[in-house]
């Protein structure tokens, strides 16, 4: 078949294929299974079966959940701000889906085009500010929660929104400073470069364990998961920012939370656990490329499990404890870590 495509058109087509692949993986494969996994893992931890009726092992539980939510009456309270009330769930969902653009999800796959073989890197956009792009998006995700809380015109929702905004700002700094260590070591802000550096040397979790701990805790805070889900806090705030949401609007928050969780796990994997690489294994050729995708998926899944495990075993922090921990413990720790890494890199003369 002689199909001639101009170079830009070919690249655009490749990008579209990658985007479709990544979204199919996260939205169609991971997300529903994650909803199922959350409920099964909680069952496991609480010594009960969990949902096991819909489909084999209860695997279609997510479908049933979402269908149920869609069938329910969509209640929009009278005094809400209609525009923002509608936009808020969308704003929560979007950043998580766009984060995947810069995450390398595999090594590369050879594709023959115009008679020449070229290695197509498995990352949608290899931008030179990779991690900053992710930070920009994660810091925007909070707008969905804050706006939901404000537009609901209800004091519990408002309190949830206020808490979320303060919480995100408090943990964003620690997150940024701990991640900066990774980039000082790799000498680049590009995520593929970070993965390649770890492939050539050592997974960052070993030399930068402190940074990893700070980053992981900050990510729990940024994704609003227990023990830091103070913006929901059903014991005190009814359901926090989504108190007034019902039906499919609620389902969007629900999906947004899980999409954020997947994105966060993918980022931790990329920064600290070598991304798609395995020590001593060279992923080349078509099968190597596919295997590297599998490696990345398994590592991400392991992190997602950690998120679930923590959620069902740890109690929630009190709000003042959360703030104290963020500003008085994790921020100084991340400073210390950054200075230590910078000093080490400078001393080793790179």
């Amino acid at each position, binding site marked *: 078949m002689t199909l001639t495509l101009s170079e830009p058109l070919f690249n655009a087509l490749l990008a579209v294929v990658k985007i479709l692949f990544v979204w199919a993986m996260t939205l169609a494969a991971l997300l529903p299974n994650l909803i199922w996994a959350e409920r099964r893992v909680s069952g496991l931890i609480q010594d009960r079966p969990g949902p096991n009726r819909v489909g084999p092992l209860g695997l279609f539980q997510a479908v049933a959940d979402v269908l149920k939510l869609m069938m329910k009456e969509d209640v929009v309270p009278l005094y809400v701000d209609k525009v*923002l009330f509608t936009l808020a769930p969308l704003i929560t969902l979007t950043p998580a889906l766009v984060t995947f653009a810069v995450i390398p999800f595999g090594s590369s796959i050879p594709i023959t085009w115009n008679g020449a073989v070229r290695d197509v890197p498995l990352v949608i956009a290899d*931008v*030179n*500010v990779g991690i*900053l*792009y992710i*930070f*920009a998006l994660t*810091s*925007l995700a*909070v*707008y969905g929660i*804050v*706006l939901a*809380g*404000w537009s609901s015109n209800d004091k519990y929702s*408002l309190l949830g*929104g*206020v808490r979320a*905004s*303060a919480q*995100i*700002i408090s943990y*964003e700094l620690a997150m940024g400073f701990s991640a900066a260590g990774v980039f000082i070591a790799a000498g680049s*802000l590009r995520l593929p470069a970070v993965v390649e550096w770890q492939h050539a040397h050592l997974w960052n979790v070993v030399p930068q364990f402190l940074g990893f701990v700070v980053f992981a805790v900050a990510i729990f805070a940024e994704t609003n998961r227990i023990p830091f889900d103070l913006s929901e806090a059903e014991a005190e705030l009814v359901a926090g920012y989504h108190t007034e949401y019902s039906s499919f609007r609620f389902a969007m928050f629900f999906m947004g939370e899980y999409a954020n969780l997947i994105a966060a796990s993918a980022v931790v994997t990329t920064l600290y656990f070598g991304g798609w690489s395995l020590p001593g294994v060279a992923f080349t050729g078509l099968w190597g490329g596919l295997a590297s995708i599998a490696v990345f998926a398994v590592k991400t899944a392991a992190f997602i499990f950690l998120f679930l495990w923590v959620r069902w075993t740890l109690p929630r922090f009190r709000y003042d404890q959360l703030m104290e921990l963020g500003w008085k413990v994790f921020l100084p720790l991340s400073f210390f870590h950054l200075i230590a890494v910078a000093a080490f890199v400078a001393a080793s003369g790179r």
Partner: protein
Amino acid sequence: MSAQMIVFALASALALVFALLMVVVKTPVKSVLSLVVTFFGLAVLSILLAAPFIAALQVIVYAGAILVLFLFVIMLLNLQKEATEKDARPIHRVLSLVAVLASGGLLAGVTLRAGAPPVPLTAPAAAYAIPAADEIPLLGRLLFSDYLLAFEALSVLLLLAAVGALILSKRRFE
């Protein structure tokens, strides 16, 4: 008209329209949100100028941190509607008009004196002297060499502002 010009026009229009909305809208929360959209427009302009790093910082620092803090304060004080115009005294209007004219005139003067940009906006990104990969190291080196004094002075200024705000708010509670 190149694709770049179209994006430039769209992003500028977006930034300008929402900047106007930010001033006109009566609800403080919506003002903040309009400003967020304006910053996005500006970030796109930075990307067009082959400065993705500046664009990312724009979004992280302004849209992601400072404006979230604004929202936090507005929500904490639970400001629903801006004070109506009736409350404003005539002297306020006169003063604000003077301020607008002065800053507008200043901006116009600077723009006129600056003349044409060294590289035309229609040129492809590669025409700029700095390759994208070197942008961040170059920026860092400049900040800590040529612009060290300005950089440190700004840091001290910010620190002073923070300390000042703390002292002022403490005094009120005592």
